[in-house]
Each structure stands twice: as C-alpha cells, then as structure tokens.
C-alpha cells in the first residue's frame, strides 16, 4: 500500500515537473512573440532594478531585462544541449550498429577508437579544445560531441551484438535483404528505447557542462544570454543583488532536474535498467 502511494507521488511529481517545464519551454520558444525587450539592449539608467510590471525579473547590471534573457537563455542553453546530443547520437549510433553487425576487424577498430575517446574526461577535452581552437560555443559543442558519441556507440553495439545472433537476422539475410536494410529496419528499432533513456539522462549533463564551461569563459561569450555566462556576469553583484544569480541558477537546476526525472521515467517505461546502468 505504502509503496503504491510512493510510486504515485513520484509519478505526480514527474507529471507536474514535466507540465511545468513544457510550459516554460513553450513560452521560451515563442519568447520573441510576447517579449517587448531586446535581450542585449543596454540602458544604464535602468540598471539593477528590482521586480516590476515592466521588468518581472528586474534588470541586470547593464539595464537589460532579466526575464527576456532567461527565456532566450533557455533557447540557447537547451538548444545547444539538444544540438550536441543529437549530433552525438547521430554519430554514435550508426558507428555502434555497424561495429556490432559487421563484427571482426571493423568492430575491433571502431571500438578501440571509442575506447580512446572514453579515456578522456569530458571537461578535460573541452578545456583542451578551447585552448587549441579558441574559446567559443562551437568548439565547446565539438568537444561535447567528441566525448559523448562513445556512449551511444557502445550502447548500440552491445544491443546489436545480442540481437544479431537471433534467427530473424539470419532469416533476413537468407531472404536476401541488403545489409543496410537489416541494420536500419530490423536492428535499429530495438535501440530506440535505450537511446531515448540514455539521451534524456545525458541532456541534463550536457546542459550542465555547457553552462559550467560558459561560466568559466570557455563556452558562450558574454553578450549572449547563456545561463552560465549570466551567472558569471552577475558574480560582482552577488551580495547586493543576489537575484541576478538566483534566476539563471534556478533555470539550470530546473532543466537539469527535469531532464533527469524524465530520463528516469523513460527508463521505467521502457524497462531498460540493465543496459543503461547510470
């Protein structure tokens, strides 16, 4: 009885949080329709204003509207997070499927490359790349993709290796289907659940990575309303106007929390606890 209650409560939390986040996301996506402020409009006469009808979240040290910047930051931070994730999946999954399906030398070669990438922690790769190519959001995304595709390749490979031995794949070969078709139509659909779970758990991590590296100046650069950048800009006003740090901080926490809860929810739904041991 109690366990059922707990389950219902966590589900309610998830549903509530999802609804809340979808609402914010919808607002953020259509921000340009409802917002009347330019996110980079500087007005030093209106700096550090408290909440008002004109500026619901107040203004920052350059007189820019905080709500506008937070909502556009959603587009930026979450948008880049999704982009990095999408590219990592798009690179990793085909490599994993091919490695698992072909086996032999191809498999060994691709997986050793993956192992090599896996050896570096993502933060270190990001810092090194920024040092080599210069700080900027593009290089940060490149670093994230370089580190993250490996997980998807390994996940895809391990599933394909177990499925490949089943008779229906042999049947498909006997029936004269092309390798491409077997991989895409008969093996790939097995992966969708697993990939969705891993991806939604990863999204939070990637967003955190983008924001934290932007905070130390390696990702997005200052005029951009990226949440990490905003946190960094608000640092000198931490004691006088803490709201400047609280809003972007809360935004990051909410999105990351949502991503994790959503990942948990998908994991339970697809029941893939074994494969995605996170």
């Amino acid at each position, binding site marked *: 009885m109690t366990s059922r209650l707990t389950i219902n409560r966590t589900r309610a939390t998830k549903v509530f949080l999802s609804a809340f986040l979808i609402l914010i996301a919808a607002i953020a996506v259509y921000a340009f329709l409802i917002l009347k402020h330019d996110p980079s409009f500087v007005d030093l006469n209106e700096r550090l204003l408290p909440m008002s009808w004109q500026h619901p979240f107040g203004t920052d040290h350059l007189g820019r509207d905080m709500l506008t910047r937070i909502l556009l930051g959603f587009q930026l931070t979450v948008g880049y997070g999704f982009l990095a994730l999408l590219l990592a999946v798009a690179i990793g999954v085909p490599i994993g499927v091919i490695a698992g399906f072909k086996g032999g030398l191809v498999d060994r070669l691709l997986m050793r490359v993956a192992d090599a990438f896996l050896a570096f922690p993502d933060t270190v790769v990001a810092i090194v790349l920024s040092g080599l190519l210069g700080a900027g959001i593009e290089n940060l995304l490149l670093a994230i993709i370089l580190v993250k595709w490996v997980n998807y390749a390994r996940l895809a490979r391990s599933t394909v290796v177990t499925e490949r031995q089943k008779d229906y794949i042999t*049947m498909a*070969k006997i029936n004269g289907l092309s390798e491409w078709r077997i991989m895409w*139509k008969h093996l790939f659909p097995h992966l969708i659940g697993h990939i969705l779970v891993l991806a939604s758990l990863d999204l939070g991590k990637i967003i955190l990575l983008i924001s934290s590296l932007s905070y130390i100046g390696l990702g997005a650069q200052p005029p951009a309303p990226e949440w990490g950048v905003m946190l960094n800009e608000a640092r000198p006003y931490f004691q006088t106007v803490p709201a400047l740090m609280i809003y972007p901080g809360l935004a990051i926490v909410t999105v990351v929390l949502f991503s994790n809860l959503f990942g948990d929810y998908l994991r339970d739904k697809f029941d893939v606890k074994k494969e995605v041991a996170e």
Partner: protein
Amino acid sequence: MTLLSVQNLTVQVGDAPLVKDVSFEIQKGEWLAIIGQSGSGKSVTASAIGRLLAPNLKAQGKALYNGKDILQFGAKEMRRLRGTSISYIFQDYQGSFTPFHTIGRHFEEFLKAHFKLSKTQRREMAEQALVSVGLQPEMYTRYPFQLSGGQLQRSSIALALLTKPDLVIADEPTAALDSISAFKVLRLLADLQQETGCAMLFITHDLRHVRKHADQIIVMKEGAVVEKGDKQSVLDQPQHAYTRSLMTASPSLSAASQLLKGDDTSCVYCN
C-alpha cells in the same frame, strides 16, 4: 539428377574441427534426413551450405549446387541463390520473425528484394502462401507475438516456400513445438514437398520424423558421417554401433511390448 553435392566439407573453429570431411548428395525432389545427437555438427553443416556460419568458423571443401560451388560464390550470386533457390526453416519459430514487424511485412520485404511486382500482387502472393499452409489470410496483418508456435512455424514454412525453391533446409523445424503441432507441421511440410517437388534437407534428432518421410538418411556423430544410405537399409540394417544405439534410444510400441514381456535383455532401459 543431383541437385546438391557436398564434397569433403570441413568446418573449423581455430584448429578444432566441428564438421569433419562430410560428403553427401541430394537428388532433385528428394527428402534427405540428417540425424545425430546435439553437437554432432548437423546444424553447422546446414549453415555452411547457405554460407551462414559465424565469422569465426571456416568452411573448406565443396558444396556444388547444380555443378557450381556455393562456397566460392560472390555476394550477388549468393543473394540470388538464397532468395530463390535455397531457403531455410529454423527451430526457433519465435526468433524467425522480427518482433516489431507484421508477418506480412516479412513477405513484403522478401518479395520486394527479389521480384518486380506491384503492391497488390505482392500482397496476393503472400496471402495465398499463408492459405497454402492452412492459415487465414488475416494473419498478414498480425504481429509475431499474436500467433501461436504452430502458426508461426507455418508462416515461416510459407515464407520459405514462397518462391518455390529447389532446396529447403529445415533445421529441426518441429523441435520447439508440442508433439501435436509438430505432427501437423511435419505433415504439412511433406505435403508441400510433394506439391512443389522441392528437395528437403531435414535435420532432426527425432527418429519418428525420419521413419515416415525421409528417402535418404545420414547419421552424424561428433562432426563426421558414420552411416548413410536409403531409409530402409539404415533403419532396418544399421551397420554402425552408434546408429543401433540411436535406434534403441528411440522408444517404439513394439519395443515397449517386448520390454513388458521381459524378453529383450539388450534393452537400454533394463540396466
């Protein structure tokens, strides 16, 4: 007329042979049964003929299909051969179909890969094939998990015989079925073989199946052929000790009645 002639087939994993120097022939329209216990190399032999071995297994020797060596075929020839001339039926009926595709989609993909037919023609052909194995045409839209074991195995027979192949390789097609379904599936297979005139390479460890339908019999043990010949000579006058022990391991009614009378002292069950 010889359809398939396997000559000195050897399959190795590393240096250890799984199949040793196996030779046999299948004539057109003939039912050849390979019997032997688990691990005797029956399935490996069958896979080697269709070039379906795992990458770590190496096949040597020859498998002449209408005079041409399958083991030397290129990818394109192999694809044509598998699609239209040789087909397989597996033991694991559940694993024979991709779980998230409908039965019909398997037929559709197969026909699409080999023939230039319109969509309605393909559908008609598939439904006819389903009817020919005693299933309703509605099965076309069903998913594999919605069918029973017998229905699935019938569907895979329909798929295997769809393009009227010359050779059907059936790898213990009834082993995973209950004995009533197995009996029905087997009878269906025999009827369809009569109808289409295809040759059958039938792998089993169940002598009852062999007794009824086979023309020729091969007995395998530890990867080698220990005895071969037509059904009557192998079953009635087994030459090899292993064949004899297989015969006694298979209970029959006459043996059981002798057992009850107590005059069969050589029976394995008596010890």
